[in-house]
């Protein structure tokens, strides 16, 4: 077992330090697309959505395009490769950005916008989409650009989300620049979505750049033990949690650091501390019971026979020794100022 762990660690080290092949050629290839940026902007202005496909990560390319050529428009980036994305939050942000942009233009035909504008975060999704689609400006040039990395990614793959994305894309004040990586991605959309809502203009832009961040969630095929989690995966999970859940993790982490010899934190202790700090533990534990990814990834609950005193412990293993487990959790939280 020990040898296996050593080899595994060696593999992970090698994986983290892999040197890219053809770095210069890949850079040249990426740079070769730069001359097409004005064309892409023109296509966006004409009302199309840009859909980029081809082998290689297109994250850098699209963000570079957005940063350098779409400066006249606000740009929101959705990381579709992550596991969970709350689309309502995205739409609220889009509405706020559009609101700012409209104010900046100062030429609004304020017919559809009430003077005492209700805060966007209290509005329903339908209202928000109606706002994004509203004829606020005669000028067709006022739009917010939505960059969606991996629109076929795990966080956006379900039918409802795709329908919402299509409705957002069809709004008059929205333009979408998206990337797909999966060969069967077009199966996500019906003809109405493709032709009238997304209105895709396909762009074949193979980059051959490594899928660094997109591949984070995929287990290494030669280290497919299942139990061992990487710090990278854990960090993504932690950041997608609610502040309440993050604080609960913090409690467990602190306990584990304070009692390194114990196997975990008794659940009743956790309950007590959480109650003292006004933290809601029940929903977190129920998520675990529902086989949600959360506790499977980071916590291990054990039942020790008769007394049913379940212990919780953090089971994160680091890619490089020393930064895993509770330390890592605390570090992550400190950065995010929780």
């Amino acid at each position, binding site marked *: 077992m020990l040898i296996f762990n050593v080899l595994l660690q060696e593999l992970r080290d090698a994986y983290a330090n892999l040197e890219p092949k053809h770095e210069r050629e890949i850079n040249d290839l990426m740079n070769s697309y730069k001359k097409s940026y004005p064309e892409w902007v023109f296509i966006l202005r004409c009302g199309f959505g840009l859909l980029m496909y081809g082998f290689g990560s297109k994250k850098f390319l699209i963000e570079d395009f957005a940063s350098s050529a779409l400066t006249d428009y606000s740009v929101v980036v959705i990381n579709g490769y992550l596991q969970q994305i709350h689309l309502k939050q995205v739409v609220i942000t889009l509405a706020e950005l559009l609101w700012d942009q409209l104010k900046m233009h100062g030429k609004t035909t304020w017919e559809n916008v009430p003077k005492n504008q209700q805060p966007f975060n209290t509005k329903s999704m339908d209202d928000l989409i109606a706002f994004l689609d509203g004829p606020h400006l005669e000028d067709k040039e006022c739009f917010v650009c939505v960059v969606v990395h991996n629109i076929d990614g795990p966080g956006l793959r379900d039918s409802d989300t795709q329908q919402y994305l299509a409705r957002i894309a069809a709004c008059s004040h929205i333009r979408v620049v998206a990337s797909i990586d999966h060969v069967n991605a077009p199966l996500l959309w019906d003809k109405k979505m493709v032709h009238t809502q997304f209105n895709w203009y*396909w762009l074949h832009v193979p980059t051959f750049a490594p899928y660094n961040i997109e591949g984070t969630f995929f287990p*290494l095929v030669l280290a497919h033990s299942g139990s061992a989690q990487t710090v990278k995966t854990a960090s993504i999970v932690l950041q997608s949690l609610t502040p309440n859940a993050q604080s609960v993790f913090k409690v467990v982490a602190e306990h584990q650091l304070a009692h390194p010899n114990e196997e975990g934190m008794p659940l009743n202790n956790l309950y007590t501390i959480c109650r003292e700090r006004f933290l809601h533990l029940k929903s977190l534990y129920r998520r675990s019971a529902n086989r949600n990814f959360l506790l499977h990834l980071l916590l291990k609950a054990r039942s020790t026979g008769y007394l049913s005193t379940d212990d919780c412990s953090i089971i994160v293993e680091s890619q490089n020794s020393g930064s895993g487990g509770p330390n890592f959790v605390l570090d992550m939280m400190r950065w995010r100022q929780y």
Partner: protein
Amino acid sequence: MAPTADSVASPPTPAAENDLQPFFVLHKAAPPRKPTGKTRRRIDLSPKKADAKEKDNVQVLDDNFRFESFNLRWCKIDCTIRNVLREINARVFEEIDRWVRESFDAIRACGVPNLARATRPHPIFNGAATSASRQLFTAILLTKNVEFVDDVLTFADLGVHLRSCGCHVAQLTSLDFSAKNGVGGCLKTLLRQFLTVGIDAPDISILASWYTEQGNYESPLVVIIDDVQRCCGSVLADLIIMLREWVIKIPIILIVGVATLDALRNTLPSNALQCLSPCGFTLGTPTERMDAVVEAVLLKHYHGFSIGKQVTTFLRNFFLRHDGTLTSFIRALKIAMVQHLLVEPVSFALEGLINEEDTKSFGGENTLLREAMIKRCLDLPSYQRPSRSNRNGDIWDCGLSELKRFRKLWVCVAMCLFEVGKNHKITLLDLYCEMLEPEKLNSRTSRHFELEKDDHSLFGGLQKGDFVHQIIQIVRDLPAMELCKLLKSWEILTRGITEINEKVKELQSLTTFDENRPRRDLTETSKRHTAKSNINVKRDGTTMKEKVATFVDCTIRQYMRPIESIPFNEIVFFDNVDKLRTALIGDPRRRIQADLLESHKFLKCSCCSKNGSMPSPSMHDTSILYTLTQEHGDLINLHDWFQSFKSIISHPGLKAKQRLRMSPSPKKRKGSKEPRNRSDASIQAEFCRAVTELQITGLIRMPSKRRPDYLQRVAFGL
């Protein structure tokens, strides 16, 4: 980009932090710039192949100019298309409006509830129970189109039409009828549209009280459900039953779109079907709409843009064999226009081409622009032909006016031919494609014509797709009266084109003469009863038809010239089919595989291209691995795959691969001791990354718990 293990130990950079956020604002819009000469982006007018010296000399244009040109043109085309489709549907819409009024009157005939009854939060059950109070009036609109996307606009237009006729209209889609939201979901949408406010707790009584408060008993409420087949049947049934109960208080009339007549029967249970009082209406077929759009956009109205033969053929095939939607055709036209404006800058500068009456407008008043345009026009390949030696001549007179004239004549002939074909199931799109290939057309028509003269029976069976020949044949077989009608319509179509119009008039006069003569002959025939005169009549008629057929043939040969031979055709005709196909369809399944199998073509490295498609250690890891995948079936043994990969990475060349193939079975190999070193770990890591990347592209699936040593290959062949 991704946070490495090291970066985790230190505070992450903003970029790395953003990578892990579900979403973030990359930047906010810069303040709007005032258009000044300095800030305008300048674009190169020269073609790609032009050398650097010429490139320096060419003039520049503003991006906004291009965009304005696009807007101007596309707005016109879009408007034309909308008008055409509205005209096609106008008759049906009128019928529906009439039926809605009749249905509303029938509901009102059951009695108007007084205010006290109407505001009670429950439906009225009429004791008399007439059919109007028991059933929901439902218009079943047969779209005759499997592809619903084409009818989205039709239903939107219907809504607008009914609103203009004084109805309250709500439009629901199949998405509103989901099992997840139940009947509450669609009720919410209904209330939202009728009341124009969002209501959290939807209830039908709210609608009833709104309708009463409005005091608007003169207007029916129309609910349009565009695609019934995709709705959840149980939810739709619930809504129908509920609306039926409230029909006296809320006179709702349903309009549902169906592709086939049995769609409602298949979707709804019998108890819901019994609540409906149906009435059928039919929309035009997709082919009719396509013909109308092609006629309006590509022939009748000119927008300074047209498509060449390759693009037309591609779009026709795409419509007939692949997509089948008018929407995609229109979208393709839009993409083609965008690409044309991008590829050919002159096209958007020549505003005069849009306005057919204007022969002198050439990029407005801008002299600089005019010079740039002329320079660019002189560089066009179609002007560079040896026959065009007079480069100093007036570019407008010798080129652009000729282009306009060519187009006018071409359109005129095309319209005349379609006038014959449209009553004989020949679609305009087919004809249009064929007419864009005049080389084939001329050779074929002349050949057929010669043979036709010799032996009529040879052409009993017409060649499929030989539409122009079919048209000539139809002309030949037309009865005299029909021929007269045809010539009359040709005379109208060719007005303004003197050379063709005169010939048509000439033929018309001959026909009049012939028409009179048979009549005289017939009178004589009735008197004489001779077989000889009958033969004469027949011969005269045939001669006339031959003359018309000859006229058609000559006109085609004379005026249907290849587009490529016309100078400056690039300004108007877009024909880059590959570019259009890539933008319209994409085809990621094939392209991503091709990327991997031919990575050296994209990376353009000297090291990998030597071996062609054979894997070499310098190649991109994922490319090597995917090339190796081609040797496997649907299941790939992980160990074998890794060993093959390793042999290529560490022992380049074919021999190593052959040695590996000759090695014993995987089980035996597993036992063999191999030296472990640092490079082993890195090879494994490279292998792991390549497998992950293949997994992201969806080209392989990970091992299952049942067979942990095997991966599944997903895609086979390009």
